[in-house]
C-alpha cells in the first residue's frame, strides 16, 4: 500500500501513571497477552502498510524489548519494515498525537521511504482500522488531512500526503503548531479536512479507569468478537509458554486467560495474563492479573489490577471497586499483615 505510518508512542497520558512507571503507555499489557502497541501495529500490517516508524518516549526499554526488529509482525524486512525512532530531546512534553518536534528529528525516515501518504496514529486508541479503506476515503474527498472518527468520537488517527507532512515539518516552528492533532484542532486553518467514518471496535485507554473498563468490556462475547477478527489477527511477541493448566480444584468462569498460567483457585469475570499462578482456595473476581504474577493460597481479591511480577502472599484480601480498582505496581509484594 502507498502509505507509510508514524506511530506516536510518546503521548503523555496523566491518568495511567501507575501502569507507566517503568514503560511507555505503548507497552502496557492488555487483554491477557498483548501490549497496547500490538493493536496499532497489527492494524497497519493487516492493512499492508509496510514502512512503520515508532516514535516512543522514555523509558524505552520495555517497548524496545517487546518490539525488537518487528519479527512478530513480519516487519523485519530488508526493504521498508519497522523503524524505532526515539526522541533525542528527552524532556519534550507531548500531549497530542503526531508531535512535529519528535518527528522532525527523524526526517530522513520520510526521505528514504517511497510511499506517497503518511498515516499518523497512536497506541492508546484500540481499534481494527483498515488503512486502505481510510486512504480510499481520503482520496475520494480530496482533503488535505483526513481523520478517522466513529460517530463523533475522534480516533486521533490521521492521513495526509507525504508532501504535506514534509512541508509541515519545515514550517511547524515558525507557525507554532505542535502536532498533527494540534493542527487539525486549530480553528483558523489553510487546509481542507475530511472525516473517515469507521464502524468497528474502539477502546480508548487513557486512565486507569478506562483501562479497567475497556478490559472488562471484552468479557462480553460480542464485543470480544469485534476486536478479535480471525481475518485480521492481532499479533504480539512470541513467548513459547505452554498451554494453560487447570488443576482439579480450579473453578473458572466468564474469564479469559493467556498461555502458561496455572490455575488452582476460583476465577470469575477476570483477565489472566501469561504465566500467572493462582493458588488453591484463592478467589478472584473482576481482576486483571498481568504476566508472571503469583497469587498464593486462600487469597480473596476483587477489582484488583496486578501489574507484572506481583507476588501476593497467602490469605491476602484486597477489594477495590469498579470505579477505583486497586492497582498493584510492577514487582510489588503484598503479604497478609499489609491488608488494605
Amino acid at each position, binding site marked *: 500500500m502507498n502509505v507509510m505510518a508514524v506511530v506516536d508512542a510518546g503521548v503523555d497520558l496523566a491518568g495511567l501513571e501507575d501502569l507507566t512507571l517503568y514503560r511507555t503507555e505503548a507497552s502496557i499489557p492488555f487483554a491477557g497477552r498483548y501490549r497496547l502497541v500490538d493493536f496499532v501495529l497489527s492494524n497497519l500490517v493487516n492493512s499492508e502498510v509496510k514502512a512503520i516508524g515508532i516514535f516512543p518516549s522514555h523509558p524505552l526499554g520495555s517497548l524496545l524489548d517487546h518490539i525488537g526488529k518487528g519479527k512478530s509482525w513480519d516487519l523485519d524486512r530488508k526493504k521498508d519494515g519497522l523503524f524505532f525512532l526515539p526522541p533525542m530531546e528527552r524532556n519534550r512534553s507531548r500531549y497530542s498525537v503526531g508531535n512535529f518536534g519528535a518527528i522532525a528529528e527523524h526526517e530522513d525516515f520520510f526521505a528514504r521511504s517511497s510511499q506517497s501518504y503518511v498515516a499518523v496514529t497512536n497506541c492508546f486508541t484500540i481499534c481494527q482500522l483498515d488503512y486502505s479503506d481510510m486512504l480510499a476515503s481520503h482520496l475520494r474527498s480530496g482533503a488535505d488531512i483526513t481523520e478517522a472518527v466513529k460517530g463523533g468520537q475522534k480516533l486521533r488517527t490521521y492521513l495526509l500526503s507525504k508532501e504535506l507532512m514534509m512541508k509541515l515539518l519545515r514550517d511547524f516552528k515558525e507557525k507554532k503548531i505542535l502536532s498533527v492533532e494540534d493542527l487539525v484542532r486549530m480553528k483558523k486553518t489553510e487546509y481542507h479536512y475530511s472525516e473517515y467514518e469507521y464502524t468497528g471496535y474502539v477502546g480508548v485507554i487513557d486512565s486507569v479507569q478506562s483501562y479497567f473498563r475497556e478490559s472488562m468490556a471484552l468479557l462480553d462475547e460480542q464485543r470480544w468478537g469485534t476486536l478479535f477478527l480471525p481475518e485480521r489477527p*492481532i499479533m504480539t511477541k512470541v513467548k*513459547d509458554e*505452554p*498451554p494453560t493448566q487447570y*488443576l482439579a480444584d*480450579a473453578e*473458572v*468462569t466468564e474469564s*479469559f*486467560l493467556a498461555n502458561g498460567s496455572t490455575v488452582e483457585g476460583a476465577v470469575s469475570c477476570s483477565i489472566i495474563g501469561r504465566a500467572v499462578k493462582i493458588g488453591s482456595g484463592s478467589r478472584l473476581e473482576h481482576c486483571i492479573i498481568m504476566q508472571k504474577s503469583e497469587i498464593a493460597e486462600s487469597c480473596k481479591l476483587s477489582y484488583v489490577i496486578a501489574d507484572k511480577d506481583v507476588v501476593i502472599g497467602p490469605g491476602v484480601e484486597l477489594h477495590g471497586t469498579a470505579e477505583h480498582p486497586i492497582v498493584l505496581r510492577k514487582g510489588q509484594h503484598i503479604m497478609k499483615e499489609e491488608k488494605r
Partner: protein
Amino acid sequence: MKREVVAMLLAGGQGSRLKSLTYDIAKPALPFGGKYRIIDFPLSNCTNSGIQTVGVLTQYQPHRLHHYIGLGTPWDLDQRNGGVTMLPPFAEVRGMRWYEGTANAIYQNIAYLNRYDPELVLVLSGDHIYKMNYQLMIDHHKDNGADVTISVIEVPWEEASRFGIMNTDESFVVREFVEKPEVPESNLASMGVYVFNWQKLKQYLQQDNENSESTHDFGKDVIPLMLEDGAKMVAYPYKGYWKDVGTVDSYWEANMDLLDSTQGLNLHDDAWRIYSSNPQLPPQTVTKTGEIKESLANEGCVIGGSVKRSVLFQSVRISEGAELSECVVMSNVQVGKGAQLHRVIVPPGFHVPDGFRIEKAQEEVMLLTEQQIEEWEGSVS
C-alpha cells in the same frame, strides 16, 4: 565449517499404528500436548543442549513438516553456519533413491555430514516425547572412550519384550542388543538416541551399504554389525520422562500424562523450554456456562461446556452443555451443544454435532472418524 557434533533427526516415519492421525502427516509432525508437535521435543532438546547443526531426514508426507520447520526460527536454529537443514531423498547422477531404512538415510547424506567434518554424530528419532540434555550423554560417550553410545531407559520388566533391549555389564558396556526379546535378560530399553564417532560410523555405513542382505536399519543391522566387529558400545542410562507415542493408546496416554504435574513432563520449566511455532491467537475464554478442571487448554479456545481431564489444542470451541472427560481435542474442533465424549481423540477441524454420543466400551480409547459422525447423524435423523 567444522562442527564437533551434528545431529541427524530421523523424521521420515509414517507411524502407521496411529491410524488416521498420520494419514496425511508424518509422525514427527503430529500435534501433541495442546500446542506442540512431536518434533518440537528433539529439536528443543538440541537447542537447549547447545547443538546448533541439525539435519532433519524426511520421506513420508514431508510437506507439512518442511513448512512447519521452515528456517528453524522457533527453535533458534536459523543460523548462518549450520542451523537446521531439511534432508529429503533426492535424485543424483546414479538415479533416484528413496531412503531404505534408518542407516541408509544417513548413508545417503554422508556429503551433508562431511561438510561439517564432525567428530560425533547424534542420531535422534522424531517419535518420542522427552526432555534430555544430549550434552551429558556426549560427555559420557567421551569419558568412556566409546565408538557408539546408546541412550537407555529402564522399562517395567513385563513390558521389556516390546523394546530393543541392551544387555550390558556393570559398567554399562553393551554385550548384546536384542530387538524385542521374548525372555528379556535386562530391562534397559534403547531410546533410539545414539552418539557415534563419525569416522567409525561412516566406515560401518559403507560396509552395511554393500551388504545386499541388510535392511539398512540401525537397530537391526548397523548396531549388531558394530558389536560383532568389536566396536566399543556403551549404554547411557537416562532417568526421566520418556514416551514412545507409536500407537493411538500411547498417544492418548502421553497426553494424559501431562495433566499430572508430578508424573508427566514439566512444560513450565524456564530452563528447558519446549519451543514450537506460535500461531497468533487471542487468549482462551471460559464463558458463563463453561467449566474446566484438570486440563490443559491452548490459546484461541472458547470453553462453554464442561471439560475434565482433557487436552484442548488451539481454537477448540466447546459449546454449552457439552461434556468432555479424558479427551484429546485437536485444533479447530467444534463440539456441539450437549455432545458427550469420554476417552475420545478428536482429529483437527472436526465438527462434533449437537447431542453427539458414541457407543463404545467405557474405558476404551477411541479415535473419532468422519464415518462415525456420519453414521450418528444418519441414526438420529
